[in-house]
């Protein structure tokens, strides 16, 4: 059966996504910390238990 896609296009697309992830990561505090740089604040467990919603929104009762 004839393929419904171009393999080269798939590789290019996934490559672009990987590059974007790498660029983002290489510029992050976590990468700086892993590279031995001190005085950086990483957020490996990114959560705010005081938030009022999963997206971090505050409670309506606390808004002015």
């Amino acid at each position, binding site marked *: 059966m004839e393929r419904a*896609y171009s393999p080269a296009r798939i590789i290019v697309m996934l490559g672009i996504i990987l590059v974007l992830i790498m660029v983002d990561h290489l510029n992050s505090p976590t990468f700086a910390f892993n590279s031995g740089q001190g005085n950086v604040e990483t957020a490996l467990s990114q959560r*705010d*238990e005081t938030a*009022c919603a*999963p997206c971090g929104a*505050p*409670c309506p009762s606390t*808004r002015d």
Partner: protein
Amino acid sequence: MTDSAILQRGLQQPGWQMDRFIVATALAGFALLGGLIWLETAPFMVALFVIGTVLGIALYHGAFGFTAGWRNLVVKKRGAGMRAQLMLFGLSSLIMVPMLYSGQAGLVGAVAPVGTSLVVGSFIFGLGMQLGGGCGSGTLFTVGAGNIRMVVTLVFFIAGTVLGSIHLPWWLDQPGFDPVPLVNTFGVSGAIIVQLLGLGLIARWVNRVERKAHGNLERDELLWKGQGHGVFKTLLSGRWPFTWAILILAAGNALTLAISGAPWSITFAFNVWGAKALEMMGVNMSQFEFWTWEYPAMALKDSVLTNAPSVMNFGLLLGAMLAAGLANRFNEASRNRPEGRQFLASVVGGLLLGYGARLGFGCNIGALFSGIASASLHAWIWFACAFAGSLLGIRLRPWFRLPN
């Protein structure tokens, strides 16, 4: 028959062709990204990545689409998909509500405020589901399986979430009140019972709709065996019975809660990706209130590899890609190229999905599935409003040349 005999019989089934290129590419992507997460973050993040991958396989092989399930009930008057969703919510409620309220520190449920933002957002999201062709998980797993129309939906979904994040503070200033955990009113057992009763009432209504139209019920949601294949072949190449997908999805969400401290969510990652893209283009996102709140600010500042929803979404995409390759159906849905109005539906639907998800505190996974599994009132309101929006979306589909 022994398990090994069943597996052997499955392996000997004739006519199974996998797409080796796609399977190899998905596995290479999994190894590469998994290795990076392992090296740069922590073992628990690798576990979440693996869970995301398994969830992607389950969604694809189980054809577990919320959007199609709702549409089948409305248009074809068939309720198996809807009943499967209700079974999933019930099972997760039984597992996760006791987990959340067991007194164990560090576990936070998917609870959210109730008000204008929730009602408007979930209605818009439901409308977007039917135009865009999927919900949060549906969009991701179909993109993973190579559906080009859904790539367009995803891009505009991301754009919509960013726009929604900019407007959310204004919406939160409209009438509304703080989250209402049902456990506070009914206790743990009471909340579970109340929720199971609610799900049972909806199931009864679904059954009545189906019986009235067809005189009988198709009980596909109760099947345990694949159709005409051995267990092993069905496991690898699909299609899974709903029951398998339900068990995997329920276990996946419970494990996500246990490992990350919060239930499974999808669309917050889209927010982060969109905001990061804008920052790369020079936009200062911290000028917007949403991005000054602690959690979004943390997620925007640090690597996507340290953001649990992002890591799980990457896994989900690769899992769906792997499953589509094993089924030899990668990009199959794109053989018939969508024409103008169908692309327009993806653009409009994607924007509505994104904007609605941010206002409504999540998608079918983060707000509905995880919300009910956390016994939060907002999830039930989300369900009703999104279904109402979906009804409107179904009526609009023909204009966009989308089949019902």
